[in-house]
């Protein structure tokens, strides 16, 4: 008798083959058989009219912290995501000495927009220092599979301490980093991540940026020792020439050490319309010479929200705004009331009173947004108030306890007729969700549903089977994830049952479920009926279950 049989679904195997009507049997967490299976099962799931596919794999997340208090990685799981890769962009939560914890929390706060309070002992039980300890800490509560990267900045910080943000490493230090990386790989890390672009909460470049190429080369030699583990990189994505230079560097490392590499993000922008195509052309040249340099591209348009309750990505080019928003609430309110500070902020926003920066934003509505403003453009509201746009943003916020959210919608990467063909490029890796990060700027969930609604049903850039392949078997192959990403006997029973006609992401909405009463934006799913992780039902018909069948995997 099988544990579970999923009956009568359209089985899409993840390899791109046309779907077939069949049953899928599960035993001991693995796929036992696929076909016409009349035998009995302890549990039967009726998938009539539904697609049965491998669980989706999200290769670019920052769930490192969230997994400490939420082993389901909500709401990723309900979108059909059964495996996530945290630890991207040089940042992980191990290996990390107790004395350095606040330094790394500051990096997560600055780079990934995560509240520092969520990292305090009240929510995150800091029981570990080494990589194995982190994995052991999160493992018991996992409902989703986790294939973690180890961050280069953490490796460097462990070996060099404060000097990791001051200088190049010595030969002995590089050797020590190699030993530590090897240990992390043995303890569960599936690869290494690094960053060429990020700064910490004091605006200092993160440790990985102080590494000379020889250091990265030495670490990649370790990645190459055991069949070729992944190197993930965040490059200077705002500049096409630098990104192409990074593609060339990654290609060199890939060929020299026999490793796969990936970089993220690649955005399409109408401001630089040839940038993404130039990058992809270089990637194709490097693949042709044997390198593996996978560009990650997200499916969703860039939508950024912010309020003056928190610093935001949107304000990254306005450092005095960011510094003001970092003040404690009472001091922040006082600063925004202070004529001199207001004048400086308004001046920083631009000679047009901030119209170019803020004018096209729309009041999306926080808890206290005036109803008369919701859904309207800031430039129109500002004119009505007889103010410039920056002044209006400040005053509308002050008048309402700062709890008014503004939305910059379709800020790039939003033209489906351009994005679709790029996503369908076989050398493009769908990813870069940033799940678990940028909590108060945008929802990092639902990219998979959006792939089906926008690029399968609407634009037709993908067939159903090709879309499934792109976020299952392709991802597993790129990352070397064993026994995942396919519906085949013997593979892990990570399975999503969904309605091909309705699977989608729902509207972005704020929720207050971050430890310390923090806010984040999320999107719920629609059209996803059942999600199984390692053979247990983790999500069914709109509700999470108590299953904790997720695993550290690789």
């Amino acid at each position, binding site marked *: 008798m099988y544990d579970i049989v999923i009956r009568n679904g359209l089985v899409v195997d993840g390899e791109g083959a046309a779907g077939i009507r069949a049953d899928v049997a599960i035993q001991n967490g693995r796929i036992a058989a696929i076909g016409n299976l009349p035998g009995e099962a302890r549990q039967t799931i009726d998938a009539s009219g539904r697609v049965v596919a491998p669980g989706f794999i999200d290769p670019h997340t920052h769930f490192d912290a969230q997994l400490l208090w939420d082993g389901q990685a909500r709401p990723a799981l309900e979108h059909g995501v059964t495996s996530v890769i945290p630890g991207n962009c040089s940042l992980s939560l191990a290996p990390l000495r107790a004395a350095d914890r606040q330094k790394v929390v500051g990096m997560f706060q600055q780079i990934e927009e995560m509240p520092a309070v969520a990292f305090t002992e009240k929510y995150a039980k800091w029981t570990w220092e080494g990589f194995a300890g982190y994995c052991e800490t999160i493992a018991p509560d996992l409902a989703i599979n986790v294939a973690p990267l180890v961050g280069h900045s953490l490796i460097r910080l462990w070996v060099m301490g404060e000097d990791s943000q001051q200088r190049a490493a010595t030969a002995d230090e590089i050797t020590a980093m190699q030993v530590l990386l090897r240990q992390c790989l043995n303890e569960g890390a599936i690869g290494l991540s690094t960053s060429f672009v990020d700064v910490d909460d004091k605006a200092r470049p993160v440790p*990985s940026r*102080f*590494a*000379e190429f020889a250091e990265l080369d030495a670490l990649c030699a370790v990645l190459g020792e055991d069949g070729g583990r992944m190197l993930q990189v965040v490059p200077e994505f705002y500049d096409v020439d630098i990104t*192409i230079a990074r593609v060339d560097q990654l290609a060199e490392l890939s060929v020299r050490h026999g490793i796969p590499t990936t970089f993220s993000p690649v955005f399409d922008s109408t401001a630089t319309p040839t940038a993404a195509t130039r990058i992809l052309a270089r990637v194709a040249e490097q693949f042709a010479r044997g390198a593996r340099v996978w560009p990650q591209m997200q499916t969703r348009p860039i939508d950024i929200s912010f309020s003056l309750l928190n610093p935001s990505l949107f304000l990254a080019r306005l450092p005095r705004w960011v510094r003001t928003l970092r003040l404690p609430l009472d001091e922040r309110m006082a600063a925004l009331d202070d004529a001199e500070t207001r004048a400086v902020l308004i001046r920083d926003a631009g000679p047009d009173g901030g119209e170019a920066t803020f004018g096209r934003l729309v009041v999306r509505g926080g808890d206290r947004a005036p109803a008369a403003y919701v859904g309207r453009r800031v430039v129109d509201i500002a004119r009505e108030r007889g103010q410039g746009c920056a002044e209006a943003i400040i005053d509308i916020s002050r008048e309402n306890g700062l709890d008014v959210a503004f939305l910059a919608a379709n800020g790039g990467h939003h033209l489906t007729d351009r994005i679709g063909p790029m996503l369908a490029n076989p050398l493009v890796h769908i990813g870069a969700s940033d799940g678990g990060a940028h909590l108060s700027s945008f929802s990092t969930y639902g990219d998979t549903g959006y792939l089906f609604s926008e690029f399968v049903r609407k634009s037709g850039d993908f067939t159903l089977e090709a879309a499934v392949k792109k976020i299952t078997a392709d991802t597993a192959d790129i990352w070397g994830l064993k026994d995942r990403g396919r519906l085949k006997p013997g593979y892990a029973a990570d399975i999503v049952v969904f309605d091909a006609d309705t699977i989608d992401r729902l509207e972005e909405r704020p929720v207050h479920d971050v430890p310390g009463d923090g806010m984040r934006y999320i999107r719920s799913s629609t059209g996803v009926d059942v999600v199984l992780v390692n053979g247990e039902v983790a999500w069914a018909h709109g509700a999470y279950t108590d299953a904790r069948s997720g695993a550290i995997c690789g």
Partner: protein
Amino acid sequence: MLSAHRRFVTPQTNETIEALAARALPGEPLDAAIDRIKSYNMHIFVMRRPAGLLLGSDVVFVEPPLQ
């Protein structure tokens, strides 16, 4: 065969902008070489970071954009 791309170097250990300019643009007067390197690399010399700080991971272009 790779197509032409904008040439770059990476800093050597403890290398200053002066030393990098002399290495990357030999035969050029030093002041002119420094000015050129700075003008090609606004991402390093205009971005917020301690003055003159070159990072080991920096991409430093040694010629202007090709297109």
